[in-house]
């Protein structure tokens, strides 16, 4: 931060992030520097920066670990980002339930204030940044950036229509940048070590930087580790995770949280980066890998995820509010051995048409459903023909 304030213009900071090629770590993987560049220059009135820490997806817990270990990184990253895009008031929107990270952040913010890194005229640079922490009332939809802004404004957490995009009209109708905890926490490194160094951290030439992976499921070590982008799925499971649980075989996993289509054993050699995972019909998402062994019923797993999404729908649009419970009902029946062959057609139809929902929640929820149909159709049919779950003992 001292380096930036002393020797870099806001544009330099932004350019460094653009050059670093960093893509957002919150799930969508949008290039961070480009997102910043959409904020109109020289527009009168305030602009805002929001850190999205509404980490609520099953299987994703990297932001929690990050904030439990080092909240200062986020505070510094936010000061740098605020400097780059000319923000004087930034917010951290943190999930209800993350009380420990919130306490850590509060302490970090107080300490930053005391050290003169926050508040008016930071280190005599003439730059002022206020940073406020907001503990969410708690809904998954608050992680959707426009719903988050509604929640922060004190409204119902329903998503807003885009356009206008937040960079033009966001919080209180002002230009707003919303970034993930991990994204912002990477900014200090990019500034201190330079964009090239950051880029080179990745294992693939097209990829850029390190990424937090949080792995859970049927592996020996369920860990949250920072790994270079481009490591293969197999390397991650066999390395930091210490391989599968004794006697278990890898069957599949979500590569990046509950809203990403499954990967299977065919993908163990797949380098884990945004584009490579997208190329096989899934998404790197948040890096929340949930590993399933060969004894896992994928219908049951999908049902479990769908239950979550159906419950967390905000209720704004019809497909999400009504379609997800529809899918949940069908999967419940199939899992209980009461499925009929026509159910598969209905599921397929939902996997397609739920994508026309208002925001990304329902399309995200179709990820596992679509992958279930594409990769595990025989398992589905077995449930229906045997009239029971073949994995239940």
């Amino acid at each position, binding site marked *: 931060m001292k380096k930036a304030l002393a020797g870099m213009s806001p544009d330099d900071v932004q350019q460094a992030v653009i050059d670093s090629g960093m893509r957002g770590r919150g799930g969508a993987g949008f290039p961070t520097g480009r997102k910043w560049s959409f904020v109109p220059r020289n527009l009168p009135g305030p602009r805002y920066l929001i850190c999205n820490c509404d980490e609520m997806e099953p299987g994703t817990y990297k932001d929690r670990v990050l904030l439990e270990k080092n909240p200062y990184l986020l505070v510094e990253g936010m000061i740098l980002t605020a400097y780059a895009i000319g923000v004087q008031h930034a917010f951290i929107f943190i999930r209800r339930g993350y009380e420990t990270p919130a306490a850590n952040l509060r302490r970090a913010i107080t300490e930053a204030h005391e050290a003169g890194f926050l508040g008016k005229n930071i280190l005599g640079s003439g730059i002022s940044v206020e940073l406020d922490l907001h503990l969410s009332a708690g*809904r998954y*939809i608050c992680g959707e950036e426009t719903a988050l802004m509604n929640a922060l404004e004190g409204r*119902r957490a329903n998503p807003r*229509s885009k356009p206008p995009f937040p960079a033009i009209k966001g919080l209180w109708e002002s230009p707003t940048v919303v970034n993930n905890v991990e994204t912002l926490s990477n900014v200090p490194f990019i500034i201190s070590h330079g964009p090239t160094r950051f880029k080179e951290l990745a294992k693939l030439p097209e990829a850029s930087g390190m990424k937090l992976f949080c792995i859970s499921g049927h592996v020996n070590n369920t860990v949250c580790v920072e790994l270079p982008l481009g490591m293969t799925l197999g390397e991650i499971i066999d390395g930091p995770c210490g391989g599968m649980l004794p006697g278990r075989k890898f069957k599949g996993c979500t590569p990046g949280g509950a809203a990403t289509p499954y990967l299977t054993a065919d993908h163990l050699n797949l380098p884990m980066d945004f584009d490579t995972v997208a190329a096989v019909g899934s998404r790197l998402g948040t890096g929340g890998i949930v590993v399933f062994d060969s004894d896992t019923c994928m219908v049951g797993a999908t049902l479990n995820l769908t239950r979550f999404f*159906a*419950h*967390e*729908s*905000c*209720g*704004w*649009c*019809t*497909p999400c*509010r*009504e*379609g997800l*419970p*529809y899918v949940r*009902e069908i999967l419940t*029946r199939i899992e209980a051995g009461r499925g009929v062959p*026509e159910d598969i057609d*209905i599921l397929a*139809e939902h996997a397609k*048409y739920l994508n*026309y*929902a*208002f925001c990304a929640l329902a399309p995200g929820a179709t990820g596992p459903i679509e992958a279930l149909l594409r990769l595990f159709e025989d398992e589905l049919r077995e449930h229906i023909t045997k009239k029971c779950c073949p994995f239940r003992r």
Partner: protein
Amino acid sequence: MPKLTIDNIEIEVPAGTNVLEAAKQAGIWIPHFCYHPALGSVGACRLCAMKFIEGPVKGLQMSCMLPAQDGMVVSSTDPEALRMRQLVIEWLMINHPHDCPVCDAGGECLLQDYTVASGHGIRRYKGKKHTFLNQDLGPHVQHEMNRCIECYRCARYYQEFAGGDDLGVMGSATRVYFGRFKEGKLESPFSGNLLDICPTGVYTDKKARFRARYWDYEMAPSVCPWCSLGCNTIPAARYRELLKTMARRNDQVNGWFLCDRGRFGNSQVNDPERPRSPRLDSREVSWDVALDMLVGRLGELNQIHGEGCIALVGSTRMALEGATLLAQLAGLCGAGFLCYYTDQEEGDRNVTAVSRMTDDNTASMADVQASDCIAVLNCDLLDEGPMMALAVRQAWRKGARVFLVGGSSQEWTKTVSIEVSDVDTLDAVPFADFKRPVVICGTLRNNPAYIENAAKAGVKTAHLLSGPNACGAALLAKEHETTSLAEALASGKVKGVLAIEADIPAELLTGIPFVAAADWLPTDLVKRADIFLPTTAWVEMDGTFVNNEGRGQRFRRVMNPGLPIKGLDPAIHPPRIHSKTAPGSDLRPAWRVIAQLMERLGGDKVVEPLTGRWEKLRDIPPDGEGIRIL
């Protein structure tokens, strides 16, 4: 003006028109629930999906969310779009109870229409439906939350459009609930619009509940008689009972909505106390006897007391037809006084306001909505013209400044949740800083000098007058240089009064030897009158009101008059004495009563009451926007 192609039809629409509206203009109706022209697009229901084939946006899109743009080629019949719309209906029907047979919205329900249109007929979903507890929303609005399809129209209307804060949306996912945040009746004076805006049967009219189906109703375009604004209505009647009133769209006047006073003011038409037969000294007589006696008594009075002892009194609630004929009757019967107002001040204020009105300087409610600066002169809008408060709110929502001049009531501004600035005088309002300023001036509290002052501001003014035809009455009062009844009585010359639909306190006429009244309301004067003639209510006749901005609007007969079947003495039902007419149906429009008196006094037969400057109001379509006659 963007040009686009929808289902192979090329159409050019004004910039900013969304594709759904553009399709409507091309004659293609795209089903939609959450979109409403008055509330805008929000993209919640996902029913208006269309396939965008060419142009800046491609693929399956919600047509309400996209403004029409040059080069768009759009299909409403694309299989994917059709399937999406079918699925939305199927999704909504997952939880909608199939209670159409006992639902009052049945027959006037968008969900029914679109479900049938979509072709969704067989239930595939095997789970249970969710259920909710209903709320008691007060005497007018029935709540049935199980029917809800979560289009969010009610919450958006109630909070955003009407500025209410007691009803809205709670919960999430499939437990989304629309209702009041705590127990009690709806607080907004515009709550009745929930009945119109709900696309299905969540909110239905409590008083009209279980009384009729949509196709049973007698309906006609009408105009609200309960203030001077002239909001357009569709009253609905069955079995000689006025059951409910719905809003009729008129963008120049009330837009899409009504106030609760107008919507729920039906009971007086059905009042069992309503006088329904001519009476002579409290005895029921035939029309001919009553009319002959009245003409005779008027002649006698002239003979005994000399010409000029009779006062003819009209009112601001009598339709224009009667009001114009009243002046002609005055000439024929040698009346000394023609009065359109009972109260001197009321007359002065109305006439002063109307005298200053020209086509250019008068603001309609549409002008108020489009204004960027509104000065309200000492009046309570919820009292003098409730829908005007809603118009002010729409302007305020678009950024207009609202000034309350000279201690105007604050209460109404809280009811519609707007921010206002207080100023002492009209001069303190910075009109010059704004492009489309308007003044709203009431006549209930402001004296004539003050009203005149409002006109001097040089700004378009909306005057609030004292009745549905107050402007027409004031124009006639000015033309015939009439006095008020109070002034006439003060002269001491009045020996006989003929009051047609006039609200005269009975004690005012103490000592007047002869009083005749014609009315449809059971007023005190009706009971005291020596001769009484029953007239039809506005829904039982064709007629014209001239509203506060000088807009002549026709209303059509909705129902034939008669005692409502509900409430008839069971002993006389079924009828033992057979008749070709319904009991209590022998009422005549006020203008017809006046015309018959004129004929008896030697006048020509009146075929068409509106003549001279009023002639152009004869043939205006009742479902149009009306015409200004200033």
